[in-house]
């Protein structure tokens, strides 16, 4: 089976996020108030061959930790794509 997986990569809590901070500072000027804790990240979409959902997620989690993220500063999370 082929499963569509999304991997989200975000900076770990406690690691400064200059992109998120810059976006957050820009929002009030555009009239968006009450928005805080903006964190920038990356998202990857993959098709993964596996016997079942758990196997696909396991493979995606492993490759996310090995390549898509740098665990020193980033967290990664694999999830099934709702859109298939």
């Amino acid at each position, binding site marked *: 089976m082929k499963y569509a997986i999304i991997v989200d990569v975000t900076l770990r809590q406690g690691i400064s996020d200059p992109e998120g901070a810059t976006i957050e500072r820009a929002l009030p000027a555009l009239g968006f108030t009450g928005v805080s804790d903006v964190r920038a990240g990356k998202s990857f979409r993959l098709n993964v061959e596996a016997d079942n959902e758990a196997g696909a997620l396991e493979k995606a989690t492993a490759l996310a930790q090995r390549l898509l993220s740098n665990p*020193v500063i980033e967290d990664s999370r694999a999830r099934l794509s709702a859109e298939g």
Partner: protein
Amino acid sequence: MSRIGVVVFPGSNCEYDAASAVTQLGATAEFVWHGQDNVDGFDGIILPGGFAHGDYLRPGALARFSPVMNAVANFANAGGAVLGICNGFQVLTEAGLLPGALQKNRGLTFLCHPTTLIVESTRSVLTLKATKGQALSIPINHFSGSYTCDDKSYEELVANDQIVLRYKENPNGSRDDIAGVSNLAGNVVGLMPHPERAMSLLLGSADGQVLLSSFVSKTLSVR
């Protein structure tokens, strides 16, 4: 004579500067293509600046899987002198040969200007001929040069004298003004500033010479 391998990834752009600098100091330099799976016969290895593999994903993230990096890791683990400059520093952290990581600069600004560095440790292959506290004028040229690491790694860096160089004035938000670090043994060093661009007073500074001559002399003593 010391024979130094300068690794060339697709997208490296400081390899000629690095080779020229160590040649000026009496070593011979040869380019090593990233697809090569050995670094046999070299006395020292330099990972130069640039944008290895286009910096796609993250700086150094793809370069660490280039075939040559296994050979560089074995060379480093056997005590060989390895120097990562700028992008080379990013590759060494991604490869786990140095602790920590390089993040986007504070302020999201590409920085290209001279900086004043302070020598913090003379234990590393890059600083053994320098003096602790010595101030050096060396340029920086980077977007992702803000050194970061978790508290445990930071405490180890301090306790083991692995902070090699600090900025006098922090340009990029790096933790504790760190500009360069070494591994525990001191034979692997990474720094964001470019000593190979500070080799001649005519071009602004010759302060890179004390750093790279330390590196070259270390590669001689290994042989």
